[in-house]
């Protein structure tokens, strides 16, 4: 972007070191460390209450960490929050434009908060309008816009001042699949142009579109890698998917079968993690014998959800022992 940003091309743009935040006795974020490279789409995956939003709020300077440290764009979040604010865009979980203002009025106001005036402001507004696909509705009140448009307008507002880093906290909540897909196309574009995108989600599909994914659970960062690498925790052929006509009790049957490490329900299907490959016939016979059959069992490539469940179980088992 500018000459200042050039040396950062190799250095991480976001770093967290042993970052923690507690609210009373509740540990929202528990010694989390990671680095984000420039231009990366960095996904924070976890269920509600995993600590994703708290981490983002710390990085945006909205919340002070209880311990540990973090830098964004080279500035410390505790001591230099003011300088961070000019270099980041932020889209909070809750929809946060003024619904009683028009599209244009919102863009004018938010641009103004970043000291964008005159022709530069105008160019950026036009850009945001184009991105959001709202050319015909500049004078529409935001409250009258459908969710998908609002989301893209919010992103446009967050990007008016061309921030090198943008934080998106569950940006596609409550948005239909088509709007969601278009939103993610936008994120891809940003990344290609060098913007770092830090995004939280609890949707596995969305996480699959990130360059790297951090799995968060109960305030801790359990795993951090590319989606492909994360899936390698399952050796080839050890993840089996079973379907059977009478699924009642099938989960327990699988869990009892020797050689099965764990089993989980995925809608109408069952996933079993086995100690070795080639156990499909064994599982099929066990289900048939238990009266759930005729069962069909086959090896499947792991989904991110499998990885997520497995990682959490491992972590909880590790925590107990």
């Amino acid at each position, binding site marked *: 972007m500018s000459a200042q940003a050039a040396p950062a091309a190799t250095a991480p743009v976001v770093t967290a070191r042993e970052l923690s935040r507690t609210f009373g006795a509740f540990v929202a974020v528990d010694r989390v460390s990671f680095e984000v490279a420039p231009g990366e789409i960095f996904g924070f995956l976890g269920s509600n209450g995993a600590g994703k939003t708290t981490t983002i709020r710390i990085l945006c300077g909205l919340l002070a960490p209880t311990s540990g440290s973090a830098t964004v764009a080279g500035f410390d979040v505790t001591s230099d929050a003011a300088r961070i604010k000019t270099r980041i865009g932020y889209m909070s979980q809750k929809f946060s434009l*003024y619904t*009683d203002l028009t599209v244009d009025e919102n863009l004018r106001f938010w641009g103004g908060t970043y000291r964008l005036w005159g022709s530069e402001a105008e160019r950026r507004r036009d850009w945001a309008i184009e991105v959001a696909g709202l050319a015909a509705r500049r004078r529409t009140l935001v409250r009258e816009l459908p969710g998908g448009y609002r989301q893209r307008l919010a992103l446009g507002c967050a990007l008016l001042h061309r921030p090198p880093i943008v934080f998106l906290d569950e940006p596609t909540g409550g948005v239909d699949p088509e709007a969601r897909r278009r939103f993610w196309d936008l994120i891809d574009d940003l990344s290609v142009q060098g913007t770092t995108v830090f995004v939280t989600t609890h949707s596995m599909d969305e996480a699959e579109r990130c360059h790297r994914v951090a799995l968060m659970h109960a305030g801790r960062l359990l795993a951090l890698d590319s989606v492909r690498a994360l899936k390698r925790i399952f050796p080839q052929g050890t993840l089996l998917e079973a379907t059977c006509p009478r699924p009642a009790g099938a989960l327990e049957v699988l869990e009892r079968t020797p050689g099965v490490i764990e089993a989980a329900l995925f809608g109408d299907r069952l996933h079993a993690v086995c100690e070795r490959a080639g156990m499909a016939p064994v599982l099929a016979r066990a289900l048939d014998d238990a009266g759930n059959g005729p069962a069909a069992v086959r090896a499947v490539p792991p989904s991110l959800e499998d990885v997520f469940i497995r990682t959490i179980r491992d972590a909880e088992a590790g925590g107990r022992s």
Partner: protein
Amino acid sequence: MRTLINILVKELLQLRRDPKILPILFIAPVVQLTILGYAATTDVRRVELAICDLDRSAASRTLADAFTGSSYFRQVVAVDSSDDLDFWLDSSRARIALVVPAGFAADRAAGRPTTVQLIADGSDAMVGTLGLSYAQGTLQRVAEAGGFRLPIELRPQVRYNPDLVSRYFMVPAVLAMIIMIMTMMLSSMALVRESENGTMEQLLVTPLSPGAIITGKLVPYALVGTVEILTALPVVLFWFGVPLRGSLLTLAALTAPFMLCTLSIGLLVSTLARTQQQAMMITTFVFMMPQIYLSGFIFPIQNMPRIFQMITYVVPLRYYVQALRGVFLKGVGLEVLWPQGLAMLGLGAVILTLARLRFRSQVG
């Protein structure tokens, strides 16, 4: 500056879009003024009394003692010349003055009809009228106790509001109250609404400083308050016919520090409340009602227990009611009302600082 204008434009646009706000802003004050313009009175004790004894005789002292010994009066000063009374009455330090003319004792001794003068402050008709009737009663008793068959002739003079029209002193106070309610209510919603809608968080990640956000909320509502006064003023002057004896400039100079107080109180509430509803409740019950009761608007401050009288010193409305009555009825300017102005300025500064500190700690 541009940043501030940007926020201002946004706030005003939002106000304009709110369909409920315009009737509240422009119709409610007129209705309230009309209804509350006619209000009740109540009894008064410890009316501030200035004594001007030009006779300096045993008889005049007996007369003065009857006043000072009564629970209805509290002597604040004894002056030597009736000219000195003006200062005490103009500044509301005294509400009623007793002037015993030279020759009072001689006349009485000679059995000639005697005259004393009473001057009452009509700008607060409640205190003025009642003070006057207490004084008449007291004089009556003195005359009877002295065994004088000839009554003392009383020459009452009511200043500022000769006919003691209660409207004249109630209406300016109602105006003060309405300005307080409107500005306090609006600003108490200001920050909470942003938090409720999730826009506060978005504002805080922008480079806007907390100070700019606070100022951006104060200025537009000060404008609204000004419009409010300009709407209500014609009603006060032309409907109620309350005379404006002082200058509009004085009025403006005293209104500014008062609005600083009310807007700051609103902002403070806004940092304390989580929802707009909570903000409304806190404003109404913690800040609005007590201020109205303790401002001397309904219940005369002279009549309150000592502790409540002390509390009234931190009630901005108290000063503003005094200020408005002073400007409207007495026609006095800042040379008299500067203590009120200064008190409001001080209170406003303190409250605004509290609100800013509270906001900053909330943000961090």
